[in-house]
């Protein structure tokens, strides 16, 4: 049944041109990340001071930066960082949010209120401003990026999962199971979890580009990756510092970010259209 479901979901996604566009970009990103070393025409750390600020050419496909490093090779390496942070941070914050959301939904009233208050409070931190404050306390690096993302985003999963759980809690089939004495674990794993996962994965898909943007943004501000790491944000920072020398670093550095966020967002949209029957009908 599951296989059939997945098959038909994929089938339906493939029938949607925007979803195909989105999946092409995402598959492209993954391929580039895996084969970054093989497809890079140059060593991304190699400085070629004679060729500083070179415009795009057959040697340097996307030009070079202020140190004469090949921008294309740096961006290819950057895709690894982007994907790594996105996957790790979304998994951690998603898991925390999933567990807390179900606890809030199923737990006693006071616990629900407490968790809701915590979710509300965490939402009061503007992400990048909190990132700056924490950057003053924590060492610079990807783990700091991940910590910032987790703190500011698990509450979002928590809210969605809580709402979903609450609406299921009093659904007739669950009340019937309870009346028959089913254990809490059975109800959670057999009924609640499967029903919560749909909206949860849509949210996760929508959050991947947000996380990638946060990483790039923090690296742009110099509070993300350590110096010299070829994050997309770091490349953009170089481009910004030398905007009067050459526009190419910024133009090239922004492209993968825009493409990837577009790809994930369109995929999230398409997933939502397919997984949420209510929305599908209203279209």
């Amino acid at each position: 049944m599951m296989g059939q479901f997945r098959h038909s979901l994929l089938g339906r996604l493939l029938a949607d041109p925007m979803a195909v566009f989105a999946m092409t970009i995402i598959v492209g990103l993954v391929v580039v990340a895996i084969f970054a070393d093989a497809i890079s025409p140059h060593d991304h750390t190699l400085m070629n001071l004679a060729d500083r600020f070179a415009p795009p050419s057959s040697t340097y496909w996307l030009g070079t930066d202020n140190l004469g490093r090949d921008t294309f090779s740096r961006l290819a390496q950057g895709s690894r960082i982007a994907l790594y942070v996105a996957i790790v941070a979304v998994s951690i914050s998603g898991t925390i949010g999933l567990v807390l959301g179900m606890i809030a939904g199923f737990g006693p009233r006071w616990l629900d209120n407490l968790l809701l208050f915590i979710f509300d409070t965490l939402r009061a931190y503007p992400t990048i401003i909190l990132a700056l404050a924490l950057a003053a306390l924590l060492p610079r690096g990807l783990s700091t990026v991940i910590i910032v993302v987790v703190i500011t985003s698990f509450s979002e999963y928590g809210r969605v999962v809580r709402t979903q759980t609450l609406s299921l809690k009093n659904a007739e089939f669950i009340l019937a199971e309870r009346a028959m004495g089913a254990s809490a674990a059975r109800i959670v794993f057999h009924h609640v979890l499967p029903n919560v996962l749909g909206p949860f994965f849509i949210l996760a898909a929508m959050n991947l580009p947000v996380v990638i943007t946060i990483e790039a943004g923090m690296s742009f501000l110099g509070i993300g990756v350590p110096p010299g790491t070829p994050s997309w944000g770091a490349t953009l920072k170089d481009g910004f510092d030398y905007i009067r020398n050459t526009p190419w670093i910024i133009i090239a550095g922004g492209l993968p970010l825009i493409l990837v966020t577009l790809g994930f967002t369109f995929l999230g949209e398409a997933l939502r259209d397919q997984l949420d029957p209510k929305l599908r009908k209203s279209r």
Partner: protein
Amino acid sequence: MCIFGRGEKMLQYAFQRVLLALAIIFVAISALFTIMITLPGDPTTVLLGPRATPELRAAFRLSMGLDDPVLVQIANFWGRILSGDMGMDYNRNRPVSEAVFSALPHTMALVFGAIFWSATLGILLGAFSADNRNSWLDRVSGILSVGFIAAPSFVVALYSLLLFSVTLRWFPTIGAGEPGDLASRLYHLALPSFAIGLAWVGYVARIVRASMLETLGENYIRTARAFGLTRRKVIYNYALRVAILPAVQVLGVGIGGMLSSAVFAEIVFSRPGIGSLIYDSVSGRNYPVVMGSMLVAIGFFVTCALIADLVNAALDPRQRAK
């Protein structure tokens, strides 16, 4: 009697919301403060920055009661804040409150500019799409909206700086304009606030479109039309009034995101503001200023979300009945 009853309900609702907002600000800032004083390392370095002299440190340790229990320190911290003392910016030798409150108006202008862009363009786009639903213009505007939402705001800021300021020279590249000259201020504000607002144009357009379509299906819209009100009046007066409500809420909550984007806009366009203040303070490890900026940023955000919520309740009488 009836009117009195209604006002009372609204007041009660407002009171609850204000309490919640205060509690959120209190807990959010206290949590940050706690992290700051309990993190390993010499707290005097943390709070004064590495440049402070040993004498300054000793005096500071004493004055701040750094050896007191954490709860006492939090209480003292709030005591000082409430008496208007946010500490000293030792790097530039001025009170933190001065630094923070001279920066805040610039950030507020940026955020409200972004809201202006997103509300006007977003509502127009959304209402237009709903009015012409399923036409190709509706589809294009749908795809554009998603594109706006997806594009990272700092890339938008960088690209628009590159295109409109550096290359075309239509807009200035640096600063917030001449003090006291409104035209110059607005001229400097236009591009950065647009860069922040673009994503929200997308959000607002989508929400207005969806809630408008939902509203147009409601019975009271049919009632209005059954009484012969014109289609335009019904759509842009009756339906839009209801359909805007969720957009107000989203923009209120969205100010958090806009504050994050404002950091980038301030740095990319070299503007003063909370974002660039906190950015400069972090590189200088200027913790009192970081704390003060956080307090003001969170306070501003929570207040705006609260106002949006109350405006919504005032516009939608059903809301406060709940």
